[in-house]
Every structure is written in C-alpha cells, then in structure tokens.
C-alpha cells in the first residue's frame, strides 16, 4: 500500500488547525466580553453584570482549556509534518511564534489561574486586571499568529540563502502586505462569532423566560456589537478581496471561478467549477458586477485561472464554495444587525419571539463562517506552502505515510471525543443557566467532595 505523506499531512493539518481555530475564534471574544462585564460590575456594582460574568466564565473555562491543548498540537505539527517548511522558513516563522509565546501565551496562562480561581483570593481590581490581561493576551496571540500566517501568503522582507529564507527586514516580515487586513478581518470575525453565541444563548433564555434581566442585558449588548461589526466586517472583507487580487491573483480567480482573463467579468453566484475541463457548469451570474466588486470599477480587468499553469492553480470548487458560504453568512449577519436596529426602534427587541428564534438559529453562524473563510484563504494558497516560493509538496517531512495515517486516525478519534465532551458540558452549563435553581444548589452542597473547579454545579446532578 502506497500512502502519500503529503496528502495525509495536509488532511491532518487542515483537520487539527480547523478544529483548534474553533476555540480561539470563540475565546478571543469571550475573554473581552468577560473583561467588559467585570469592568461594568466594578463601576456600577449592578448584580446582573456579576451574574453574567459568573455564568460566561464557566463556558470560557471549558473552551479555553480545549483551545490550549489543541494549540500545543499545532506547535509540534510544524516540525513533525512540515519540516521542509521549518527548514526553509524556521528562522523567520520561529521568532514570530517565539514572540507569540513570550507576549501572549505566558500572559494568558499566568493570569488564567487568578481569573478562574482567584475571585476570593485577590482584590477586585487585581482580579479585573487578570481578566483584562487574559483578554489582551488573546488578541496579542492573534496578532503574531496572523503575522506568521500572512508571511506564508505574502512573503516580504526576506532573502534567499542556501535554499532557505533568511530575514532581511523584520518590520517588513511582521507587517507583510496581507497582514493588516487579515488581522482585522480575523479579530472582527472572532468578536462576531462570540457575539452570535452570546445573542443566541440569551435568545434561548428569553424564549424560555429564564434569567430575563440578565438575558436582556446580554442580548442587547451582543446585538450592539453585531450592529457595529457586521457592516464593518463586510468593508474589511472587501479590502481583503482587493489585497488578494493584487498579491494572490490565482487565489482570487479560484474564489470567483474565473478561467479567462477579461475586462468585464460577471459575478458568478452559482456554478459547479470543473477543474479538469477548465470551465464552470450550471452557471448563474450577474453581468458586470464581478469587475465592480473586485476592482471597484466598471470593466476592471480580472486575471483568469488559465493565466497560471495548471500545476499552480488551487482546487477551485472548494475555494469557490467556501467563500460563498462565508459571504452568505456575512450578509445574514448584516440582516440580523439591521433587524435588531429596527426592533430597537419600535421597542420590540425583547418580545419578538420570531427574532429570538432567528438569533438562536444564528448561534453557530460565526463558527461556520470562520472555518469557511479559513478554508478559502488556506486552500486558495495551494499549491504553495509559502506563496510563490515553497511548494506544499516540498514542505513535508521525511516521514512515512503509515505514521501520518496512524496519527491522523488518532487525532480524528480524540478530537471527536473532545468536541463531543466540550459541547456536552457547555450545553449542560447553559441549561443550568446564570442563576442555578435552588434545587441544583442544594444538590451541589450535598455532593460529597465538592470539587473546587470553576463551575459551582455538578452537572449531571439535578438535571
């Protein structure tokens, strides 16, 4: 049996990074949400902020734990599976990741314990400082990891010596051409993801008439952020499109499934791209609109896939569709923002059950959009590991296909267990709610050896 370590390593990397990404996409926003809640509680002393803090920190703790352990996997993936990349690019990527560790990981880990377990052990203001440190740490972490990732997309500030990339200008490396827009796009996506989770969970409580005071507060706050960020994100996304057109034209052509270069391209809404036949089937398109969106001018020229050798083209169909999933969800999010504004205007935000059901249905939308966006950008970079410099096939480690297959199977098994358990415990935490019913509390107190973990409730008890 001949197992291809390149393909298997790609599957494995895509799987472990996509899975990992779900958790920081959520914890970046939730850490900031907790810092805001605690800050408001310190300032106003209103109990609902404290109640909300105590509720969301439990969900944060579970998510953060999974994010940490799946993140450790990523550090080692680079070397175990992609030693061709680390050999060629380690002296550039390594220091960027090194800065992530010393500016972000230690900050988060150092203050996480105080945040989760120190409420009664440190002064209130110190505890708030710990929460804020963790929140800031998550954003710093995003800064460095996107800097490293953006270098793979738009390498800059490097020289080539002995077949390896060596740093020439660190400022140019850290702020590579695609970095600023990709950083803002990703952080905004993380905040949107969290906002839809908070709004969705709050909508669920409102539908059930539970913890109404807190849920209204949270629902309103999350929707305000969505109202600001959903349109801003569409603007940033548009800027990202301009950047991709300039720096990675083959990716843009794949996103739009354009095969021929032309000066008046339509916007393809639906198609079935045929990679081998170099054409699209079942096309539904709007004339002129492609040029307008992609170049911001009527008749702007867009390069087609046929300008690139077949071996330099990314897989078109998956990039095309992942992009449409992301954009479709982005506009659904904008719809949610506009609806919430209108409902606020007419004073019906808290008693429109149809809207609460809609927001509950939108709860996972951020996660789906983030993964779809990640697939668009990463698969769109193929066949390159470092765009235009190092092919993915040359980046792989000298490991056997059998070893990679074994690790891939184990990762899938373990991550299914992990995701199942995390979702199970988070759903249980949500069901218990911000204010645990008295019966639960008594049950908890009766439980021998009350564990000292963060959640006060023994979950299977009292359900």
């Amino acid at each position, binding site marked *: 049996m001949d197992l291809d370590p390149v393909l298997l390593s790609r599957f494995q990397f895509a799987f472990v990074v996509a899975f990992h990404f779900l958790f920081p996409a959520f914890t970046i926003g939730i850490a900031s949400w907790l810092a805001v809640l605690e800050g408001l509680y310190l300032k106003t002393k209103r109990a609902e902020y404290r109640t909300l803090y105590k509720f969301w920190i439990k969900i944060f703790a579970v998510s953060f734990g999974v994010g940490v352990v799946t993140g450790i996997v990523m550090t080692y993936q680079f070397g*175990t599976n992609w030693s061709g990349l680390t050999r060629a690019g380690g002296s550039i990527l390594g220091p960027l990741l090194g800065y992530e560790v010393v500016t972000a990981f230690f900050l988060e880990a150092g203050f996480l314990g105080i945040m989760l377990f120190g409420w009664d052990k440190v002064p209130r203001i110190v505890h708030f400082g710990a929460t804020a440190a963790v929140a800031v740490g998550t954003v710093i972490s995003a800064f460095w990891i996107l800097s490293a990732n953006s270098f793979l997309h738009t390498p800059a500030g490097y020289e080539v010596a002995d077949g390896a990339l060596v740093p020439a200008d660190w400022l140019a490396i850290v702020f590579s051409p695609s970095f600023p827009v990709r950083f803002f796009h990703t952080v905004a996506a993380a905040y949107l993801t969290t906002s839809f989770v908070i709004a969705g969970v709050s909508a669920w409580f409102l539908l059930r008439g539970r913890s109404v005071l807190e849920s209204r507060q949270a629902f309103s706050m999350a929707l305000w952020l969505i109202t600001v960020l959903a349109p801003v994100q569409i603007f940033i996304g548009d800027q990202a499109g301009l950047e991709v057109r300039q720096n990675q034209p083959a990716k843009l052509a794949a996103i739009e499934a354009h095969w021929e270069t032309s000066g008046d391209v339509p916007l393809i809404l639906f198609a079935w791209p045929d990679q081998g036949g170099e054409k699209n089937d079942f096309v539904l398109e709007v004339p002129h609109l492609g040029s307008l969106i992609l170049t911001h001018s009527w008749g702007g020229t867009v390069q087609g896939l046929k300008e690139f050798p077949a071996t330099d083209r990314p897989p078109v169909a998956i990039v095309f569709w992942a992009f449409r999933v992301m954009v479709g969800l982005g506009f659904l999010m904008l719809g949610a923002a506009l609806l919430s504004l209108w409902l606020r205007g007419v004073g019906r935000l808290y008693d429109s059950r149809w809207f609460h059901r809609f927001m509950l249905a939108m709860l996972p939308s951020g996660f789906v959009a983030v993964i779809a966006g990640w697939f668009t950008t990463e698969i769109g970079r193929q066949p390159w590991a470092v765009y235009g410099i190092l092919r993915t096939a040359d980046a792989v480690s000298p490991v056997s296909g059998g070893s990679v297959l074994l690790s891939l199977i184990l990762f899938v098994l373990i991550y299914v267990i992990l995701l199942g358990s995390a979702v199970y415990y988070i759903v249980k935490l949500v069901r218990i709610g911000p204010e645990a019913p008295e019966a639960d509390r008594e049950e908890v107190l009766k439980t021998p050896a009350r564990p000292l973990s963060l959640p*006060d409730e023994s979950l299977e008890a009292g359900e």
Partner: protein
Amino acid sequence: MTPDAWTIATVLPLIWAAIAAAGVFMYVLMDGFDLGVGILFPWARTEEDRDLMMNSVAPIWDGNETWLVLGGVILLAVFPGAFSIILPALYLPLTFMVMALIFRGVAFEFRFKAHSSKGLWTVAFSGGSLFATFFQGVVLGTFVQGFPTSGGHYAGGSFHWVTPFSLMTGVALVLGYGLLGAGWLVMKTEGPLQAWARGATIRLLLGVLFFMAVVSLWVPFLDQTIAERWFTWPNIAYFAPVPILVAVFAWRLWLSLQRGSDYGPFLYTMALFVLGYTGLAISLWPKVVPPDLTIWDVAAPASSQLFLLIGVAFLIPLILVYTTYAYWVFRGKVRAGEGYDH
C-alpha cells in the same frame, strides 16, 4: 563544528543554548510536578484526596505547560536545522505525547464538571499524565542516543526511537516526575494525604536513585566521546561533585522526610533534578542533534537570534515576576471547599 573565534555569530548560539536549556529545565520542574500528581492519582487513598491533589495544581498547570511550547518554539526559531531533524525523527512519540497532554489538560475542566462520568476523567487525567511523561522520557532517551542524519535531514525510520535505553528513560522519567509530584503534595497538603505523600516520596526516591545509577552507567557506553568526557583527567575531578552531590541531596531528602519537613522533600527533589540535568548537559555539550551536529551547525541567521533575543531579554524576567505572583496568590496548603465563589 565548534567555532574558532568568538564573534557575535558564534556567541549568540551560546546564549540561546543557555536560554533553551533553562527553559526546558523550567518545564521539567514545573510541569514535572503537576504531571507527577497525575501519575500518583491511581494510588490515592480516596476520591476526596484526588480532588485535593488536582486542586493543588489546577490554577498553575497551564502556565507550567507553556514552558514546553517555549522550548519547542526556541528550537524552531534559533536552531531550525535541529527542529527540522528532531521532530520528524520523533514523529510518533511526540504525537503520542501531545495526545496524552490533551486528555490530561481537558480533564481539569471536565472532571470537575462531571458527576456520573467523573471516573472517566480521573482515568483521562492519570493516564494522560502517565503517558505524556513516559513519551517525554522516551524522547529524552532517543535524543541522548542520537539521530542518524544525512545532509541535514533525518535519515532514520519511523521506529528509530524504540530502544531498550529510550524505554528505560521513559520509565525513569515517570518515577522522576512522580517523585516531584509527591514532594509537591507533601508541601501543599496536610494530615493523612500528606502522610501518604511522604510514604510515596520514600518509595519513589529509591526508584529514582536506582535509575539515576543505571543512566549514569549506561550513557558512557552509548558514545565513546561521552565516556572520554567523564573519565579522563582532569575532567573526572571537575565533574566528580555531580555524583557526590546526588548522594548528599538524596540523604538530605531522606532526613527531611524523617523530620516531617513540609518543604524539604520538594526542594531536595528539585536539587536532584538539577544534578541529573547537569549530568546530561555535560555528556551532550555542545550537541543539539547528537551525535554529530552542534548548536553552531544548525543555528538560524544572527538576525533571527537577535530579533527574538531582544524580546526574550525583557519579557522572560517579566514572565517570571507574574508567574511568581500567581504562585504566591495560591500559596499555602490546599483545603477542601476553599477559595471558590459560591
């Protein structure tokens, strides 16, 4: 190769080797005791004791594990040539190690939230701690034995790491981390749990001394240059304090247990780890990919080393300050039902 002259390009790898060695040692000590607590889990007397044991490390384990990430990333940034040989060579044991770390890491959160499934997460925590440690020991043993390379690439097979020596070091490290964990528990607990931890310390100390002796006798036979380094004059005089101090600290550890000291067992165990680590460093210096490649052979360009060094020089002291603060917040004996908001 070793450098002929001291320039910035030859001094930087030296500085970084010291930082990397210190970082990895921080990891070994700090995650060592919290992994050790997990290793001791199956032998705990009661479920209440297990809760206390886990609580004694719950607020700090994440910070401890971050040193592992730092070690990996320094290797990538500063010695990318070594990273790109060692990690593929250790593909399976490293993969098994991170998988074990996944189970024990999430067990902290999940076990405390579980009720009927609590037993499963107890197994995940202790099994994860045990296997993560065992594979770390295997990685260490494989590292000491060296890697076959050709042209800067790993040239061995998928199972190069399976040797009697590496399996022995795997078991040895389980006992070593277990000893650290037992010492930590003597310091952090009281009453019957502390008495139990003292008993565990004595047994584990005997095991650790046995394996330190085995490693010390075995390593010189792995490589001629290692034997020459230890057993030629005047090195033998310079390095003689290492084994002598091992005996002295083991004896002091024993005494501290007899006297009922809270801090002695943990402190002297750490001292034993310092000595063991020093011994390995003496054997391997200046190799970063034994048996052939030195830190200078695989170092990144000076620009990379300098860029990260600036950050590390300012931030590691700061990290040590707030890490110390976090330990200080959770100082003293861990007690049931304490310190949590209800």
